[in-house]
């Protein structure tokens, strides 16, 4: 394994690091104190939006192949799934709205419109990814065990095809996420036994089957009934069922590709750093904060962008305060940015197209051997004699 570069970013002394930590803690505490009615109203509104778009979208798909209704129906269904997974599901499953004590918004009981079981997600995402963000070999979300996005990973014959693989990952994103925590890559190279995966696989299989029944069996059957009623006969029924089936496929694809794009823009843009296991040993809260900032990138945009990205357009703020209700990120972002400026920490943000472009560049660059090192070891006290 390559030696990480030792970099000196941000706070320059232990005292400065402690002050940095206190500044961020203060932002968190102040925002937390305001959480209440406003946040509850916000997330109830989001649930209403999910229900409305889903109902209208599915209803429109029942009108068969008529282009205006079919296109709008599939589009609305896609929007519904995006908001359900991202602004509602992802944030609720972080426990951001546990304070409401409402079972509909409790992180442990919420179930989303996705093939990934909630238990698997809470482990692989809330725990592994958020604790070990961008630590090579620990954070399994970094490249998903498939992509080489840093020179810390050995190059192999698979990697020249990784742009193609990325396209597959984007199209089938929910399926990859569903089996992500099974760690099939480890099974493939013989570091894990299939029998160890079985209990998890049963959970995943049940959730996948539930999603398949809903989107690809139940609703197409409703479509068949509507088709028979509207257009008459067997032909009408078949057309109706196929229109709903394809509408649901498209709705899921829209969600998959969009979720993929947002998530890749959050951690795989060009200037996002990675870390090595040894660098996080004995890490303080301040150093953890610093790693979260250096390992995340934001997307600039308006309210619509924030809503549709599930506020992952504020990936940095989300990684600093994962249990703060997401509707508060926009409010704390300027304060976080001011702290970054104060301690000379790069605050990685850009337009959606710009960030996505650098993601593609990064995937392309590391599909070939070599490439710049992205792993860094953050040096706090730069006055150590051997470094001086």
């Amino acid at each position: 394994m390559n030696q990480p570069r030792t970099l000196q970013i941000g706070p320059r002394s232990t005292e400065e690091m402690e002050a940095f930590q206190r500044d961020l803690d203060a932002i968190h505490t102040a925002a937390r104190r305001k959480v209440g009615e406003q946040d509850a109203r916000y997330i109830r509104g989001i649930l209403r939006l999910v229900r409305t778009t889903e109902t209208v979208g599915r209803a429109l798909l029942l009108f068969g192949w008529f282009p205006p209704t079919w296109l709008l129906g599939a589009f609305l269904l896609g929007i519904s799934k995006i908001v359900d997974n991202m602004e509602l599901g992802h944030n609720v499953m972080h426990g951001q709205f546990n304070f409401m004590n409402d079972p509909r918004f409790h992180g442990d009981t919420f179930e989303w419109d996705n093939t990934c079981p909630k238990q698997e997600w809470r482990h692989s995402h809330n725990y592994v990814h958020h604790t070990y963000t961008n630590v090579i070999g620990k954070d399994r979300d970094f490249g998903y065990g498939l992509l080489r996005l840093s020179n810390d990973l050995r190059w192999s014959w698979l990697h020249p095809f990784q742009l193609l693989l990325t396209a597959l990952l984007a199209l089938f994103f929910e399926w990859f996420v569903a089996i992500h925590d099974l760690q099939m890559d480890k099974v493939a190279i013989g570091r894990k036994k299939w029998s160890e995966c079985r209990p998890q696989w049963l959970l995943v299989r049940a959730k996948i089957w539930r999603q398949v029944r809903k989107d690809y069996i139940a609703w197409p059957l409703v479509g068949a009934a509507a088709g028979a009623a509207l257009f008459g006969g067997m032909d009408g029924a078949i057309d109706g069922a196929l229109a709903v089936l394809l509408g649901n496929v498209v709705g899921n694809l829209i969600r998959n590709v969009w979720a993929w794009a947002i998530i890749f823009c959050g951690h795989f843009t060009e200037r996002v750093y990675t870390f090595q296991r040894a660098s996080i040993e004995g890490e303080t809260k301040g150093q953890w904060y610093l790693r979260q900032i250096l390992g995340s990138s934001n997307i600039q945009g308006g309210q619509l962008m924030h809503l549709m990205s599930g506020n992952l357009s504020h990936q940095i703020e989300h990684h600093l305060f994962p249990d703060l209700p997401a509707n508060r990120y926009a409010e704390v972002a300027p304060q976080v940015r001011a702290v970054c400026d104060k301690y000379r920490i790069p605050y990685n943000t850009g337009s959606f197209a710009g960030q996505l472009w650098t993601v593609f560049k990064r995937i392309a660059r590391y599909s070939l051997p070599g490439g710049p090192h992205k792993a860094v070891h953050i040096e706090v006290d730069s006055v150590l004699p051997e470094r001086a």
Partner: protein
Amino acid sequence: MSAARSSIPAPVVATRRVARWLDTLGVSPMALDDTLAWFNPMWRVHQLQARVVRRVAETPSAVTLVLQTGPAFPALRPGQFVVIGVTIDGVCHRRAYSPRTLPDEPGHIAITVQRQPDGLVSTHVQDSLPVGSMVAIEAPSGEFVLPAALPAEVLLIAGGSGITPCMAMLQHLHAHAAHTRVTLLYFARSPVDRIFGQELARLARQWRQLHYVPVDSVANTAGVQLGQASGARTLDLPMLDAACPNWRQTVAYCCGPAPLMDAARALWHTEAPHGTLHLEAFAAPRASGDPDARHAVTLRRSGDTVRFDAAGNMTLLVAGETAGLSIKHGCRQGICHECTCRLTRGTVQDLSTGQRVEGEGQPVRLCVTSAMSDIELDALNG
């Protein structure tokens, strides 16, 4: 239960069946519920709601709310409780109340809420829940009910707002079994604080079979020093013998503050070990352990582990919340089991029964349990 089930109208039964089919097909029953609620919030079949239609002041500190319930709300057996949820500053708080049915108003129930000192929910209900507000409501439950074959004689012992389930039973007996001999011993701080005071006096005049014994006493009131001769009478043998001479053979119900219930429990234990006494607590029990002891609590919930310290005189739920955690909970009175966790190690006290529980995987309710040692818990419900 069969009576309760048969009271559900056919459209609700059908909707629930559809919801079950949809659930099998992968469609969330909650989505169906939310969709029905667009048309009418009363049409929900899972997360039920009720509307406040009338407010009546009973005493300076107690108010009765008349609630309109939806078709999916099951029939109520007198003495049972319902859990009502109100949202305050975005947070849902649930409490149990003993409702009465209203003979002239089908589809309506009445709950009476006594203002508690520092009571968040009771204060909200009194001050900020106007007519027209919606509250969440759960199906009635509880075993503090009259037996199916009504006995010839019943003894009711109530203290303060513990009168509410007794009143429900009393009204039921008066309407449907007026030949039953009923004795009601009712402790209250003063005539002004006596909920349903006038109604009970009127009922006692009309209904010969009712023997009504109001007792003015502060003996059961929290924070009042005992020892004064007058105005501090508590439940004792002479009082019971005078009010209901054959109380040992009578089916008895007692609902009130902890001192009253403790007194009743002790009397039956020593004097009538074979008698029938039903008890119902109406407030969260207080932990009475050592306030200076600090027990380490480890709570695991699907991969996450949280740790906090619990003083011996705090419930585990309050201790966790004091440490800044939001722990999933419901009624905070040991009723709904939302906060139930498995105790895998250590010793706790179940404050609802007073029993010690040694951890070997038993379910414990955090809201009515205090730590007696360092403990480890595994969360249930997800």
